[in-house]
C-alpha cells in the first residue's frame, strides 16, 4: 500500500494538546515552578534548585504525616474490603429486598464529604451528639477532641461508614456475574461454604476487588474534607494526614516552595501506587484470557 506523508495531520492533534495543557500540564508546572524557586516577597523569585526537596526529605513533620497517612489507608482498607465482601455475600441475590438493599447501600455514597464530616462531628460530640453522649453516659471515656485514639477511631469509623458501600456494591456486582452452574458444580463436588468462597467467589471477584482497592486507596490517601471537619487534624497533629498538612503548609504558613515540593512528592506516591495496581490488574486480565 502506498502511504502519502501528510504532516498537516499534526494539526488534528492540536485541540487535545491544548486541552491537556490547560487541564493538567500548566497547573502542574506552576507547582513545579514554586517547588524549585524561593522568594523574599515583591513577586521576585530566584532559583532554589532541589533545596525544598532536600528539606522535605529531612523533615520529621512530613514523615510523620506520611506515616499517619499510610496507617490510615492500611486500616480502612483492612476493614472496608473484608467488610464489603461480607456485606455483598449476605445481600439478597434477587427480589424486592435486593433493590431495597442496593438503595440503602448507595445512600452513604451520595452524601457530600463535608456533610459526612459535619454529621460525625456532631454525632460524636460528648455534650450534644448521640454517640458521644451515649458513650459518656455508659461510662466510657470518649472524647475525640482531646484523645488521639478516640479521634482516630472516629475518623476510621466515619470512613468505614461512608465507603464500605462502594466495596460492597462492586463485590456484589462481581458475585452477580457468577453463573449458577458454578454453585451447582460446587454442590455436586460437596465443596464447603469456605471452599465455594475461596475457589469460586473470590477468584471471580478478583477483578472488581482490585478496582475497589485501588479506588479506596486513592481516595483514602487523598482524604481531606472529612477529618478536617471533624478533628481539624487534631488533637495536636494526631489526625493531620498528608493533605491536611499540605494545606496548612501552603495556605496557613504560605510556604509555597516547600508546599510545591510536597505536592509533587505526594502526587508521585499516588501515581506510583496506582501504576503498580494497574500493572497487577492488567496481568490478572491476561491470565484470565
Amino acid at each position, binding site marked *: 500500500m502506498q502511504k502519502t506523508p501528510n504532516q498537516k495531520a499534526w494539526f488534528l492533534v492540536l485541540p487535545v494538546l491544548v486541552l491537556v495543557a490547560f487541564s493538567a500540564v500548566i497547573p502542574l508546572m506552576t507547582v513545579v515552578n514554586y517547588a524549585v524557586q524561593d522568594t523574599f516577597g515583591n513577586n521576585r523569585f530566584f532559583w532554589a534548585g532541589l533545596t525544598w526537596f532536600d528539606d522535605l526529605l529531612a523533615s520529621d513533620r512530613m514523615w510523620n504525616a506520611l506515616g499517619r497517612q499510610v496507617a490510615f489507608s492500611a486500616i480502612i482498607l483492612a476493614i472496608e474490603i473484608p467488610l464489603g465482601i461480607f456485606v455483598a455475600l449476605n445481600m439478597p441475590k434477587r427480589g424486592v429486598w435486593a433493590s431495597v438493599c442496593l438503595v440503602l447501600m448507595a445512600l452513604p455514597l451520595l452524601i457530600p464529604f463535608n456533610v459526612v464530616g459535619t454529621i460525625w462531628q456532631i454525632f460524636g460530640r460528648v455534650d450534644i451528639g448521640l454517640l458521644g453522649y451515649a458513650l459518656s453516659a455508659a461510662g466510657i471515656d470518649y472524647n475525640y477532641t482531646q484523645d488521639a485514639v478516640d479521634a482516630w477511631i472516629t475518623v476510621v469509623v466515619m470512613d468505614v461508614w461512608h465507603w464500605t458501600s462502594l466495596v460492597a456494591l462492586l463485590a456484589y456486582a462481581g458475585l452477580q456475574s457468577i453463573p449458577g*452452574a458454578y454453585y*451447582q*458444580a460446587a454442590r*455436586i*463436588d460437596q*465443596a464447603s461454604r469456605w*471452599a465455594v468462597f475461596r475457589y469460586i467467589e473470590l*477468584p471471580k471477584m478478583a477483578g472488581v476487588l482490585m478496582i475497589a482497592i485501588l479506588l479506596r486507596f486513592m481516595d483514602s490517601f487523598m482524604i481531606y474534607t472529612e477529618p478536617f471537619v471533624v478533628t481539624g487534624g487534631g488533637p495536636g497533629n494526631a489526625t493531620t494526614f498528608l493533605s491536611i498538612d499540605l494545606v496548612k503548609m501552603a495556605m496557613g504558613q504560605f510556604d509555597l516552595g516547600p508546599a510545591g515540593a510536597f505536592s509533587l512528592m505526594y502526587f508521585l506516591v499516588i501515581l506510583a501506587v496506582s501504576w503498580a495496581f494497574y500493572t497487577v490488574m492488567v496481568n490478572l486480565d491476561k491470565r484470565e484470557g
Partner: protein
Amino acid sequence: MARITLDNLAHSYLPDPRGEDDYALKQLDHVWQDGEAYALLGASGCGKSTLLNIISGLLQPSRGRILFDDFDVTHAATAERNIAQVFQFPVVYDTMTVRQNLAFPLKNRGASASYIAQRVQTIAAMIGMESVLDRKARGLTADAKQKISLGRGMVREDVNALLFDEPLTVIDPHMKWELRTQLKSLHRDFGHTMIYVTHDQTEALTFADKVVVMHDGRVVQIGTPEDLFERPAHTFVGYFIGSPGMNVIPAKIEGARAYVNGAEIALERGYTALSGKVEIGVRPEFARLSATEGLPVRIRRVEDVGRHKIVRAEFFGHDINIVAAEDENIGSDKTRVAFDPARVNVYANDWLVEGSAA
C-alpha cells in the same frame, strides 16, 4: 452406578398448576437402566433441562418420585445424590491446577491422599490430560475445561450417573466430534449411566444407546436411533429427526389404503377407522421419483448436497421432500412420486397408529 427410576413424575413452575398446560414437564414414568447411555433430545423449551435438573436435585418435582436403585431421593440435596454433571459452559476452578481440580471432589469427601493421587492419575489417563496436570485450569481451552469437568465427575468411583447438559455448545466444531467419540469410548470402557441433554440430533444419535425425544413437556418416544428413524412414534419425532425430516401429509385411511385428495396410496398394514387428525408420514429416503409409477408431483427445486440430492416438491398442495441418489438423472419426465408401502406410517392426532397385517 445406579438405575434411575422416574415414578409418576411431573413438574410445574407455577405454585398452583391447574390444567395440563401449566406443567413444564408432563407426567412421566421411565426407568434409566444402569450403565446405559441415554440422550435427551428436544427443541429449546421442551422440558429436557427441567427433567435434568430434577434428576440432579436442583429442582424438586411438583409430583411423583425419583429413585436411585431402590432409594427415594426425591427430596435429597444434590450433594447427597452422588451424581456428576457437565454443564453447557465449562465449569472449572480457575485458580486451581488441573490436578487440584480433579482431586477436589475426593478431597471434600475426605479421601486419603494416596487414594486421591492414584485416582487423579487414573482419570487423567482416561481423559488424556496427564501432560497438563500441573497447569492452572484458567488458561486451558474450552474443550480441555469440559474434559476436566467430566473428569471431576468420574473421579468418584461410586458416582451414580453422569449428566451432560448440552456440553458441546461452546466447543469448536472439529473438537466436538473428537470429544463425542471420546465420551462414547469412555462409556463403553467404564459403563457409567449417562444422560446427555442436547438439541442436536447428530450428537444424540451418535452418542446414545437409547434416545429420549421430548416435545412440549412430554416424552414422545424412547428408542434406539434406528427406531426413531424407521418408526417415529409421533410426527414431531419424524420431523425433528432426519435431514430433511419426515413428510407428513393429511390423508384418509380405509383399511390398507390411504387417500390423499382422492388419490390412492397402498399401505403394508390395515387400519381400523381413525378419527381426528389423520396423516401419513413418509421419510424422504423412502420416497422416489418416477416417470410411470405413483402419484403426480411437481418438482420445485433440486438441492445437491454432495452425497445425495434433495428434491423439494409439491404434492397435492403439500410440500414434500424426496431424497434421490447422487447419480440419479432428474429429468422433466419425472412427474410422479412413489412411496415404499412398508415405510409409510399412519398418524392419528400426531401419534403413530400400529396397523394389523393386511
